[in-house]
C-alpha cells in the first residue's frame, strides 16, 4: 500500500512538472515556432513570474519586500503581467535585431535579471531567496493536496493550449507566421511587422511568467540558484524541437517526453554513490544535448509536426452550379 502511495505521488509530481513545462514550451512555440523570435532568456521571464508571485502572496517579513498577502487568483495574473511588461520593454529595444543577435541579447537579459534577483536583497531576499510561499490546496488531507494542485496546473495548461491554438489558427497567427516565413512580403502586404513581433514576444513571455509563478508555489520556495537558469532554457528548447517546432500539440508532447526522461534518469542517477552521484546529473544534460542533435539532423520536423496551415483554409467543395433562371432586366 505504501509503495502504491509512493508511486502515485511520483506520478503526480511528474505530471505537475510536465504541465508547468508544457506552458513554457507553448510560450516558446508562440515566440519561436510561430513568430520566429530566438529567445534564449526563458529562465529570466520564468524568474520574473516566480518572484512576482512570491512577493505578492507572502505575508509580511523583514527578509524581503512583501506583506501584500494577495490570493493566488490575483497574484498569478499579476505575475504574468510583470513578465509581460519586462518582455515589452525588452522587445521595444531588441525586436528589430536579426535572430542571432536577438539570441545574444536575450541571453544577456536573462543574465541581468538573474543578477538583479541575486543582489537586490531588500526586495528578493538575495541568495537566500523567498521561502514560505503558500501552495494552493495544501490544507487538503493526504494525497488530495498534490492531486488538486495537479488538476489546477493541468487546467491552466489546457487553457494555455486552447488559447495558443486559437491564436495559431486566427488571422493574427497567420500574420505572425507570414512574418516568420517572409518578412518583406508581410511588410509589403501592409502589416506592421514590429508590432506583431512585439505581441508574439510579450504573449510568449507572459506564459513563461505563469510557469514561473506555478513553480514557485509548487516548490514553496524561489531563489536565484534554486534551478540552473540555463538548464530551464535548454530543456524548454529541446522540448519544442523534439515535439515539433510550430506545433502546439507538439510542444506539449515534447514537454511530456523530455521531462519524463529527465525525471526517470534521475531515479537511476540517485542510486549511484559517492563522487559519481554528484557528477551523474551532467551525464543527463549531455544526453539531452545528444537528443537535440539527433532530432535536428534526422527528424527536423519533430515528433508531431504542425498540420499544414493550408488545410484549415482549403475552400469548401464548390457548390454545384445551380442553373439560374434567366434574369429579365427591368425596363428601366
Amino acid at each position, binding site marked *: 500500500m505504501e509503495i502504491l502511495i509512493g508511486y502515485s505521488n511520483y506520478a503526480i509530481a511528474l505530471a505537475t512538472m510536465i504541465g508547468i513545462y508544457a506552458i513554457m514550451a507553448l510560450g516558446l512555440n508562440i515566440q519561436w515556432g510561430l513568430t520566429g523570435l530566438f529567445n534564449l532568456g526563458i529562465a529570466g521571464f520564468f524568474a520574473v513570474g516566480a518572484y512576482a508571485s512570491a512577493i505578492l502572496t507572502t505575508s509580511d517579513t523583514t527578509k524581503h519586500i512583501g506583506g501584500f498577502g494577495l490570493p493566488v487568483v490575483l497574484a498569478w495574473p499579476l505575475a504574468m503581467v510583470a513578465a509581460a511588461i519586462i518582455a515589452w520593454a525588452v522587445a521595444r529595444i531588441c525586436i528589430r535585431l536579426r535572430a542571432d543577435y536577438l539570441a545574444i541579447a536575450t541571453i544577456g537579459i536573462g543574465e541581468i535579471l538573474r543578477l538583479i534577483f541575486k543582489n537586490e536583497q531588500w526586495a528578493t531576499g538575495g541568495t537566500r531567496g523567498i521561502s514560505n510561499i503558500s501552495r494552493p490546496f495544501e490544507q487538503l488531507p493526504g494525497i488530495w493536496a498534490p492531486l488538486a494542485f495537479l488538476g489546477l496546473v493541468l487546467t491552466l495548461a489546457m487553457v494555455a493550449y486552447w488559447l495558443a491554438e486559437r491564436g495559431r489558427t486566427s488571422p493574427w497567427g497567420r500574420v505572425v507566421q507570414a512574418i516568420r516565413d517572409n518578412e518583406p512580403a508581410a511588410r509589403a502586404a501592409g502589416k506592421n511587422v514590429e508590432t506583431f513581433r512585439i505581441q508574439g514576444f510579450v504573449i510568449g513571455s507572459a506564459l513563461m511568467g505563469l510557469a514561473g509563478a506555478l513553480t514557485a508555489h509548487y516548490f514553496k520556495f524561489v531563489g536565484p540558484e534554486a534551478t540552473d537558469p540555463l538548464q530551464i532554457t535548454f530543456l524548454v528548447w*529541446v522540448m519544442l524541437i523534439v515535439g515539433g517546432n510550430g506545433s502546439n500539440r507538439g510542444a506539449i508532447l515534447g514537454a511530456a517526453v523530455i521531462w519524463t526522461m529527465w525525471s526517470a534518469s534521475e531515479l537511476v542517477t540517485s542510486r549511484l554513490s559517492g563522487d559519481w552521484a554528484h557528477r551523474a546529473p551532467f551525464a543527463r544534460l549531455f544526453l539531452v544535448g545528444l537528443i537535440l542533435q539527433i532530432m535536428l539532423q534526422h527528424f527536423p520536423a519533430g515528433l508531431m509536426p504542425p498540420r499544414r496551415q493550408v488545410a484549415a483554409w482549403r475552400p469548401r467543395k464548390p457548390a454545384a452550379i445551380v442553373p439560374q433562371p434567366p434574369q429579365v432586366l427591368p425596363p428601366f
Partner: protein
Amino acid sequence: MDQILIFINAYLVPGIVSGSIYALGAIGLTLLFGVLRFTHFAHGDVMTAGAYFALTFVGLLGLHPVLALPIAMLCTSVLCLGINHFFYRPLMKRPSLVLTISSFGVALMIRASIQLLYGVESHYYVRGIQRSTEFFGTFRIVDRHIWIVCCAVVLMAALHLLLTYTRLGKAMRAVSDSPDLARLTGISTSAIVKATWVIGGSLAAVAGVFLGWDGFIQANMGWDLLLPMSAAAILGGLGRPYGAMVGGLVIALPKS
C-alpha cells in the same frame, strides 16, 4: 603620480590582459561567422575545453602553462573538427539558425562532459603568489600578464600575416566575402571550413588557457565570457577579424 601608478597597475594592465583574451576568442567567433554564416554559441565552451586540456597536461607533466599551450591548441582543434564533422556539417544545407540552435546544444554538451570528468570545483594551473617584474623602478607587472599580452600580440600578428599573404588566408577571405564566387574559382569550401575550425579552435584554446591562468579554471568560465566576446565581435563587425581585435580592447578597458 601615485594615482597614475594605481591606474596603470589596477586598471590599465588587467584591462589590456582581459582585452587580449576577449580579442582572441572574438577572432574565432568572427572568423567562423564569416565562413560559416552562423553565430557559434559553443565558442565559450570550446575555450573552457582548451583550458581543461592544458590543465590535464600541466597536471600530468608538470609543465608551465605556456608550454602546455601548443598541446591544448592541438587537442582543441581536433575537438572542433570532430564537432564540425558530427554536428554542424550534416546541418550545413539547412537555415543558419538551425546551426545556431545546434551550437547551443553543443555548448551544453561540452560543458556537461567537462563537469562529468572534472567536477564543478575550481582548478588552478599554478598556486601561490606570482612573481612580478619591476619596470622603470616604479610599477610592477605580474609575469603572467607579460606572457599573456606578448603571446596574444604574436598570435594576432601571425593571423594577420596568414590572412594577408598566404593562399589559405586569401581563400578564407574570399569565402568570407562571397561563398559562391569563391567556389566558382575552384576554392574547396570544405577545406576552408576545416582550416577555419583549426584556427578558431586554437585561438579559443589560447584564450581559455590565459583566462584560467589569470584567474581560475571552472566549467562555466567560457560561457560567462560568451557575452563580452560576442559584444567585441559585433562591435568590430561580424566577419572582420581586425575589428574583433580592436573590439576586445574596447570592451575590456571600460569594464576594468
